[in-house]
């Protein structure tokens, strides 16, 4: 089966600034992808390219096996909820759903209405709470029965309770539709709960990509006495190095078992792992690559 989203060396330049560069990735079918990275890392650009909002400056994009700029019919199978769930504020809930029905040939009324419980059809969008608006935008996106669903910062305006409710609805819809999902968020904790695949962007580059299981099993924290670092058997590369007094802690990507007893070896959680890859402190250093190279790309 072809991956629903593939990028080969994709770059996007806005005027003189590259928002995304050298982006190569393949999202497996039915994955729930956490697209992580600080603000301005290129997450929205990646999603915008995927739905053909703009053309890549370089590289090639395949969405469900098609080029989204040449074959706009592919968009019928892609659900996209842009940041802040943009909806027509003067529309009622009913208007919004009717508009979605009229503009989407494969519209599935039953799915959409399932996700509109507790919303009154006559309410105007402008009077809805952030959580209700997010639910309405999700219902519109799910009503298309998308094979690929893209969400840009869906939790940004939601309080914790509304965020959890939104996530419940989203997971419910995803298991019903068997869709592949990409959730962009700058808050790692928001995507940690559901993601089984991670794409981490920073400064327009993919820093890390892979299944959560593979990423967690291939990284360990090593703690031991501070020492000059040579090659440590079992360690492929040192992602981050921290000193405190006579002790040092390394976040290491492994390619084997670390058996040296002078290191104590601990597992690392996903949130800590992603934050470590985002941290600027690991960019410089004597062995660091030239700026902009994809050294950490999994």
């Amino acid at each position: 089966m072809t991956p629903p989203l593939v990028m080969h060396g994709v770059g996007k330049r806005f005027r003189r600034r590259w928002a995304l560069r050298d982006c190569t990735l393949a999202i497996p079918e039915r994955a729930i992808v956490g697209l992580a990275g600080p603000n301005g890392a290129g997450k929205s650009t990646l999603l915008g390219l995927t739905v053909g909002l703009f053309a890549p400056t370089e590289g090639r994009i395949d969405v469900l096996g098609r080029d989204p700029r040449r074959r706009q019919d592919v968009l019928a199978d892609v659900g996209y909820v842009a940041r802040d769930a943009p909806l027509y504020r003067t529309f009622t809930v009913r208007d919004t759903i009717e508009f979605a029905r009229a503009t989407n040939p494969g519209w599935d009324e039953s799915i959409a209405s399932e996700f509109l419980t507790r919303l009154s059809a006559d309410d105007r969008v402008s009077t809805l709470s952030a959580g209700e608006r997010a639910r309405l935008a999700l219902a519109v996106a799910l009503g298309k029965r998308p094979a690929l669903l893209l969400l840009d910062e869906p939790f940004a305006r939601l309080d914790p309770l509304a965020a959890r409710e939104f996530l419940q609805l989203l997971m419910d819809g995803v298991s019903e539709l068997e869709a592949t999902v990409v959730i962009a968020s700058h808050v790692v904790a928001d995507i940690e709960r559901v993601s089984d695949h991670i794409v981490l962007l920073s400064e327009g580059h993919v820093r890390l990509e892979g299944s959560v299981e593979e990423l967690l099993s291939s990284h360990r924290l090593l703690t031991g006495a501070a020492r000059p670092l040579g090659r440590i058997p079992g360690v492929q590369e040192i992602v981050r190095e921290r000193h405190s007094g006579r002790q040092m802690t390394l976040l290491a990507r492994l390619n084997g078992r670390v058996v040296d007893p002078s290191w104590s070896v601990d597992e690392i959680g996903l949130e800590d792992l992603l934050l470590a890859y985002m941290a600027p402190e690991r960019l410089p250093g004597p062995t660091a690559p030239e700026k902009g190279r994809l050294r950490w790309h999994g």
Partner: protein
Amino acid sequence: MIEFHLDPRSGVAPYLQIVQQVKEALRLGLLDVGDQLPTVREVVADLAINPNTVAKGYRELEAGGLVEARPGRGTFITSTLAAPSLKHHEALRQELESWLQAAERAGLDEESIRAVISTTLREAFVRRVA
């Protein structure tokens, strides 16, 4: 029907937490042959977790011969972990209860009690493996 819970900070992979909770319920006799597990959709809508996680946990249980997925109907318990030891649980629990009371009388607080139990468990199982 069993209701799952998820501890994201436990360090145990979420699908394994589901497997462990089913096994524990089977050991305690809370689930029995013929009982139905909640559907994947029910679990994800309840816990806000990835459907692939639930499906993976259920597959693992099926591979272990504990459940069977019947297409279009759901996932059902096909074997139990409780029998035949379950009938001894109550008596053992009462013995443990009186041991706990003795420990409290001897002045152990909760942390000391946990420490004694966990080291004893560990040593006992190590001896058995060795």
